[in-house]
């Protein structure tokens, strides 16, 4: 722990800390371009020069390249240093265009800041500036190479941190060019991070281009709602339009970066089809009318059929506050027909995942620091993209990554691969739960046993599971295996990928409550007459759409509270528009059990761009803001129960009511969140596994999540829609030969949900006997929902 003096202040830092970081601890910001906490030091920009007066090195040195040592006396602002930095900036500016007035980076440009701070206001260089041809880098990023200052941050982010291979640095010396081999979309699903790391305007957000100056944006700390990881983001809005999302630093979860689904999935908030008005029987009414009509209908049903005739459903998209108040309202109504997830198997898998000891649960930071990660039934890039990036960081530090999965899994890093079909998982997990034993009854158990031994031998072992493929039983077995592979001083941590941003919250609150299957039966048998859906879409998310459609059709009353035009909204008798994450405040609990609060970015309203149709804003005057009727679901619930919508009081109540949420009222949205202290009870009973038998002329149907098109909200984002692939099915070459199928040709897939015409893909890196289809909303594949037991299907040429 070296102790040194920087600008007359003493600081002690861990061994290996560089002087730039040491100064930061004292609140001294040394100007820099190329140094980045996540990317490390390269000493390329020469801006972070400081003067070393005493100690092992003397004179002007780069602070990012100099490790702090005992006895150093550093001056970050001596006259010589300031002159040196001003000179460096002047060099950098010789080639930089004076186009700040038309540059999107303006206002958050490090070069602009440093140029002004460095005192370089007048250009002395009058010669020609170096210019380049820009490339079309696809739908997300604009390229403007003339502005480049050669800090190499983009290459270090894209290639080193994110594992991309199609963007890099070309040429040498004065001819450096940061780009691709030829024009075309950037291939990495983490390409959007280039926008955040570029210290000037070379790489900017195409979806945000020329929309706002950053100082005009409304911004607040928020959480990404597009998977269960809960990455920290900063959305920006203006003129009632959500205009962009940036990564926010949370060292425990995402670190400095986010995935492109998170960055560019924001468009759902501005969607022109978003329902913004309360509706009764598809007729637009006022809030008062709608609430009164619904409550009188509820009362009527309650009196006629009893309180058990009312079912309530929320989802993993709902905040903890909404879920809690739904539970409260169910109690007030006297109904025990309450469920927190429309997909029973996913529901119970989440409940199992939430029941484990939380000191065993791994954060993304734990993933980045592990030395062995074994993934069972997990496809990180599709189910939780930032997990893939965390695994890459672990591998860069020497970790071994093993993936056991039936699907063709792609990661931005090399890994060890075992293609194993889902029905072999139980054998594998049995072996995994028995380290240091020899008498295995199958080769699959033996594989599990050998992985278990490796986990036992590792220093920071990690077991990662995808709950969609594992199901509740598999999730439980993985937890048992982790326990068996743990030693007191080095526990084998686990991480599960869950359905949505607040699956964990729903799992904690549902305790031993019913699954949606039992609500379905209630509806089918006519016991349940009314269903109230809070940000839940049972029609799309219950695995059997025919059955859910028929059940919902039997209801006397379907009330839906949502922010998106879901399938269930179309069928609703009462509809109430709710706010998006960015338009309200709330709490989400991520897949490791971390409570994270988010703040309101802007108020809901039809974007000016839409209400003015791209022209001058409307010239008539009203007191109301168009489209501003959405309210937070927890706010509506408060009103329905006659409570005041007081967030602080509500959080204190949640805390007091359930000690698992201790600390909720103290949480700050810009902090690291807080782990749930105590796990929930293990669910008493789990739905049974019902494996369908697969005939010899049939294949097993496996529906899986995919990066773009599966998750509801991001699939509504216009800029991601163009990346949703045409519906396809993937089979093993053996099966292609068996059924005489050809790559790229149309095939007919006969499923229990109907016959579908799809394009065939053949992939050697998967198990035979399976037909894999992605969940793609808005396509013929829409009715197929992941996370179900495997079903039989037929495949034939068209």
């Amino acid at each position: 722990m070296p102790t040194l003096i920087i600008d007359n202040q003493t600081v002690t830092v861990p061994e290996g800390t560089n002087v730039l970081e040491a100064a930061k601890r004292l609140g001294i910001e040394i100007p820099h371009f190329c140094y980045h906490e996540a990317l490390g030091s390269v000493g390329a920009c020469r801006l972070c020069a400081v003067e070393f007066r005493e100690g092992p090195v003397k004179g002007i040195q780069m602070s990012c390249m100099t490790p702090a040592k005992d006895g150093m006396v550093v001056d970050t602002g001596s006259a010589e240093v300031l002159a040196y930095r001003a000179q460096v900036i002047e060099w950098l500016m010789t080639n930089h265009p004076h186009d700040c007035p038309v540059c999107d980076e303006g206002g958050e440009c490090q070069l602009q800041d440093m140029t002004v701070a460095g005192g370089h206001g007048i250009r002395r260089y009058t010669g020609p500036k170096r210019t380049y041809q820009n490339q079309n880098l696809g739908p997300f990023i604009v390229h403007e190479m003339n502005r480049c200052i050669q800090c190499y941050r983009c290459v270090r982010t894209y290639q080193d941190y994110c594992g991309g291979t199609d963007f890099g640095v070309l040429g040498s010396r004065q001819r450096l060019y940061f780009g691709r081999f030829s024009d075309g979309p950037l291939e990495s699903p983490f390409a959007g991070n280039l926008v955040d790391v570029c210290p000037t305007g070379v790489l900017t957000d195409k979806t945000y281009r020329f929309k706002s100056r950053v100082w005009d944006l409304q911004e607040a700390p928020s959480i990404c709602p597009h998977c269960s990881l809960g990455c920290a983001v900063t959305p920006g809005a203006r003129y009632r339009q959500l205009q962009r999302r940036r990564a926010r630093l949370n060292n425990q979860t995402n670190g400095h970066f986010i995935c492109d689904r998170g960055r560019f999935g924001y468009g759902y908030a501005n969607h022109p089809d978003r329902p913004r008005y309360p509706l009764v029987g598809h007729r637009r009414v006022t809030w008062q009318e709608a609430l009164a009509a619904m409550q009188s209908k509820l009362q009527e049903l309650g009196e006629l059929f009893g309180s058990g005739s009312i079912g309530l459903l929320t989802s993993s998209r709902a905040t903890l506050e909404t879920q809690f108040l739904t539970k409260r309202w169910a109690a007030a109504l006297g109904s025990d027909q309450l469920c927190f997830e429309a997909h029973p198997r996913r529901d119970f898998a989440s409940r199992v995942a939430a029941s484990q000891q939380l000191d065993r649960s791994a954060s993304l930071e734990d993933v980045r620091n592990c030395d062995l990660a074994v993934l069972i039934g997990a496809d990180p890039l599709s189910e939780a993209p930032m997990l893939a990036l965390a695994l890459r960081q672990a591998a860069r530090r020497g970790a071994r990554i093993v993936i056991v999965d039936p699907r063709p899994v792609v990661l931005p890093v090399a890994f060890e691969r075992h293609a194993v079909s889902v029905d072999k998982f139980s054998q594998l997990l049995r072996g995994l739960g028995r380290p240091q034993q020899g008498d295995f009854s199958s080769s699959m158990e033996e594989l599990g046993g050998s992985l278990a031994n490796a986990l036992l031998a590792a220093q920071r072992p990690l077991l990662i599971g995808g709950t969609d493929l594992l199901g509740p039983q598999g999730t439980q077995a993985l937890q048992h295996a982790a326990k068996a592979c743990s030693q007191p001083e080095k526990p084998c941590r686990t991480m599960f990928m869950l359905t949505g941003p607040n699956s964990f919250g729903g799992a904690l609150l549902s305790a031993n409550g019913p699954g949606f299957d039992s609500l379905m039966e209630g509806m089918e048998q006519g016991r349940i007459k009314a269903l109230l859906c809070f940000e839940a879409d049972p029609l799309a998310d219950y695995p059997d759409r025919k059955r859910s459609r028929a059940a919902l059709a039997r209801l006397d009353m379907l009330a839906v509270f949502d922010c998106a035009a879901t399938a269930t909204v179309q069928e609703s008798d009462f509809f109430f528009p709710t706010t998006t994450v960015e338009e309200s405040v709330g709490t989400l609990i991520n897949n490791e059990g971390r409570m994270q609060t988010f703040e309101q970015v802007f108020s809901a309203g039809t974007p000016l761009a839409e209400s003015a149709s791209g022209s001058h804003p409307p010239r008539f005057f009203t007191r109301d803001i168009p489209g501003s009727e959405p309210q937070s679901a927890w706010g509506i619930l408060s009103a329905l129960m006659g409570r005041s919508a007081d967030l602080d009081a509500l959080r204190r109540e949640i805390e007091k009511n359930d000690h698992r949420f201790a600390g909720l009222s103290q949480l700050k949205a810009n902090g690291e969140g807080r782990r749930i202290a105590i796990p929930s009870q293990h669910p008493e009973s789990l739905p049974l596994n019902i494996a369908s038998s697969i005939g010899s002329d049939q294949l097993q149907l496996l529906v899986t999540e995919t990066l773009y098109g599966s998750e509801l909200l991001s699939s509504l984002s216009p800029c991601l829609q163009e990346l949703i692939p045409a519906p396809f099915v993937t089979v093993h070459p053996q099966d292609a030969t068996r059924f005489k199928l050809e790559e790229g040709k149309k095939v007919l897939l006969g499923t229990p949900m109907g016959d579908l015409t799809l394009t065939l893909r053949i992939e050697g890196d998967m198990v035979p006997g399976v037909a894999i289809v992605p969940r793609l909303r808005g396509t013929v594949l829409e009715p197929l929902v992941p996370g179900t037991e495997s079903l039989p299907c037929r495949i034939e040429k068209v």
Partner: protein
Amino acid sequence: MAMLLSEKQIAQLKRRVRETPHPREMVLDVLHAIQDANGWVSDEGIELAAIILGLSPLQVEEIATFYDKIYRRPVGRKVIHICDSICCWSRGSETLMLRLQQLLGIAAGETTTDGMFTLLPTCCLGACADAPAVRIGKTLYGKVAPEQLETILDGERTEVKS
């Protein structure tokens, strides 16, 4: 694409890549093979090299564009590199450059109309002890005096003819 190298050459290079622990070590060997066969490396050449090496075209291009002895545009049969780095510059490389431009009737970066020579400045030929240095084709000339240039060029021309 196959025309850039013979099937046999491609198979040989692929075998050598397989035998190398790090395929990137072989990038320059593959690029030189393509350049030797074609005089320069076209975009298709980069793509072929990428296939042989199991890398992305960008990863090959990063290296191809870093080195000025890999030609990414068509050049004459022989490329003349005149070192303009500090040692050669202090020993009169500027005079050599001017003299060569006169003799060949082209500016730096251009190719003679007969397609014989391309004239390029280079930042170092690793021959500082023999400054000023000039490289023509694969022959290095050290301690070159301006009056020697005409003879050197004649020699290089005849060598091609013979």
